[in-house]
């Protein structure tokens, strides 16, 4: 199998690392070679964060490079715009319809771009979701990241049952039910 490239981008603190752990879990279970690369340390404090996931028969470098991503999962709109050039021509962009103003915007030294979704949709396949609203419906805003994963999972090669099983193995016991519900909310949307 040709190596598949997935990227997860967002704002430090949004919970992208849990998403990548679930991804790593499901890929390993399926028996593929896999490499994931994460950001720890300073950038996790509200900065722009990226996680790379690559899997296939044999994976060398752990990072996805410009023009290579099959799936780009963006937890925030501005980050979708920042990393859009990492997508392949026929790659899919999953974007959470949420705005988090960077400090450069809060202090007025920069402006948050308008019409991000419309612009992104012009020349690529975009799936947008308001994951926070979905999570609120489920009564727990913290699980919005798993809602996004559920949406993104439709662009990958694993079954719903496989996903639910891995979620059960990875998230803390007390949160299994809500996270599985969140996944289904995204997956069956």
């Amino acid at each position, binding site marked *: 199998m040709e190596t598949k490239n997935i990227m997860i981008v967002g*704002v*430090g*603190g949004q919970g992208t690392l849990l998403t990548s752990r679930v991804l*790593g*879990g499901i890929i*390993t279970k399926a028996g593929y*070679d*896999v*490499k*994931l*690369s*994460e*950001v*720890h*340390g*300073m*950038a*996790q*404090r*509200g*900065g*722009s964060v990226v996680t790379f996931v690559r899997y296939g028969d044999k*994976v*060398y*470098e*752990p*990072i996805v*490079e*410009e*023009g290579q991503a099959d799936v780009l999962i963006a937890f925030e709109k*501005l*980050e979708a*715009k*920042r990393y*859009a*050039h990492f997508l392949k021509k026929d790659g899919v962009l999953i974007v959470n319809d949420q705005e*988090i*103003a*960077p*400090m*450069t*915007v*809060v*202090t007025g*030294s*920069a*402006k*948050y*771009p308008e019409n991000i979704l419309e612009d992104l949709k012009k020349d690529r396949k975009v799936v947008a979701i308001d994951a*926070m609203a979905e999570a609120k419906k489920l009564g727990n*805003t913290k699980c919005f990241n798993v809602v996004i994963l559920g949406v993104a999972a439709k662009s990958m090669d694993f079954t719903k049952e496989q996903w639910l099983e891995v979620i059960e193995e990875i998230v803390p016991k007390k949160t299994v039910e809500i996270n599985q519900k969140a996944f289904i909310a995204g997956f069956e949307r």
Partner: protein
Amino acid sequence: MGKTKIMLGNEAIARGAYEAGVKVSAAYPGTPSTEVSENLAKYDEVYAEWSPNEKVAAEVAIGASLSGVRAMVSMKHVGLNVASDPLYTCSYIGVNGGLVVIVADDPGIYSSQNEQDTRMIARAAMLPVLEPSDSEEARVFTVRAFELSEEYDTPVILRTTTRLSHSQGVVNLCGRKDIPDKPYERNMQKNVMMPANAKTRHVFVEQRLKRMAEDASSFDINKVEYNDTSVGVITSGIAYQYVKEAMPSASVLKLGCVHPLPKQLICEFASKVDKLYIVEELEPVIEEQVRSWGIEAAGKEIFTVQGEYSANMIREKLLNEPVSYTVSKDVPARPPILCPGCPHRSVYSVLKKLKIHAAGDIGCYTLGAVAPLNVVDTTVCMGASISVLHGMEKAKGKDYITHWVATIGDSTFLPTGVNSLMNMVYNKATGTVMILDNSTTGMTGHQDHAATGLTLKKEETYAINLYALCRAMGIEHVYEVDAFDIDELEKVVKRETQREAVSVIITKAPCALLKTFVPKGKCHTIPEKCVKCGQCLVPGCPAITRSEDGTVTIDDTMCNGCGLCMKRCKFDAIGFVPNEK
């Protein structure tokens, strides 16, 4: 094949150490090395501790090794500077039980203050260096490092980089080796480094490195992959992965041991390929040695000494196949910031109001340097805030520093800050030191330390009392203030910066990311009372945004209920809803 598991590079290093039978591990947390110790601590068979700094940690490991067990110390690259004193000399002493030093470099400076290359220090200290290129190798090479350490009577450095440490890959799990404790043997000539003995040991160190260099050509961790011999690449570590990705048909000499270099193997490889490249991140350590042997090779005239490499970079530089893509325009930068509910923000908001400069230190609170706080003026290294402030006073006089303070975290004060404070007392300083006590090591992901009351293994222990420690040094004016009590803090800072004596202000409030932290409630705006003055926005809380018409909104999913914005609002336009108990 046995069991496999997907692991971070750092987790795999810990696994390797466990399998190698390591008994004692010591470390001070530092990105990107922290997870090595955190994972090693999970094995019951291993004693693992957080030491107050890397020098202490290295000495703990040296002691354990001399006593006859396998021992390990881990640190980030700049931690090696702190640990250099014991390590340079331990190179002379050698080992009894195997001694491995894990050092994590940070090409690209993701979470550090510089981009130094550990291999340069290893060469100066005459210590061997192994460099894995993925998680599985991280495990295997760690085991190998212990074996080589005992075989050659030397501490061995295992060098990793951020990309390797924080990448996950599939790891084969093996069992723990049964390594019997060696007896301790008194050996003054070897273990007491006074001049006469050290002179003899220096000869040994030189011979040891020569012998290792000769043997290295047959080390199983140095591998040659012959393919198309028109192009040959010498590489190591994570750079190997980029080479394989971009140039699958090239011949590759992959060095697992990057110091000392296997000269014979390199000469042989060089003679069989038409064009030789050397691909190594950071400094031209391999390149300069290879060239010094009269071998023609291209390296840093093509590649940079800064940052990380990538397959695309190799495609562009070596294959002349630049990858073209269009980057989105007008995307505002998103630098890291203090979190909502962070006590550092509250302290800095007071300093900003009083127009006080801060000599800063290493930790989350370094972010007080950037807009909108703009309070921190200097950041050098762990503990430097206090001594830099002292130097300023001695240079410009005590009046000059009445609008200065030193700001340092609790977990940075204990490693080296405490020495600097001692120096202020001893040398009659009058400066004000603020210890921003958030009860944890925040930036690296919440590790305990000597003042939190818990060990790395999460056992309860005596918590060093920072107030009592400062008082015991003879400092009369030590004050503990709630970090969010901005009125009291303002009063104390104003008073103490004017005082002609050393004072210490300990601001207290836990990090909002601690698992034990429970927000007291959430803040919200009361639009009808808001006059759009923007005072709530001054400290730069990411949960608060202002729309174009000046209306302020507080994001209730982000707010941690610290109430700083509410205290700053003079119009009661911010309300507070306490959390249900």
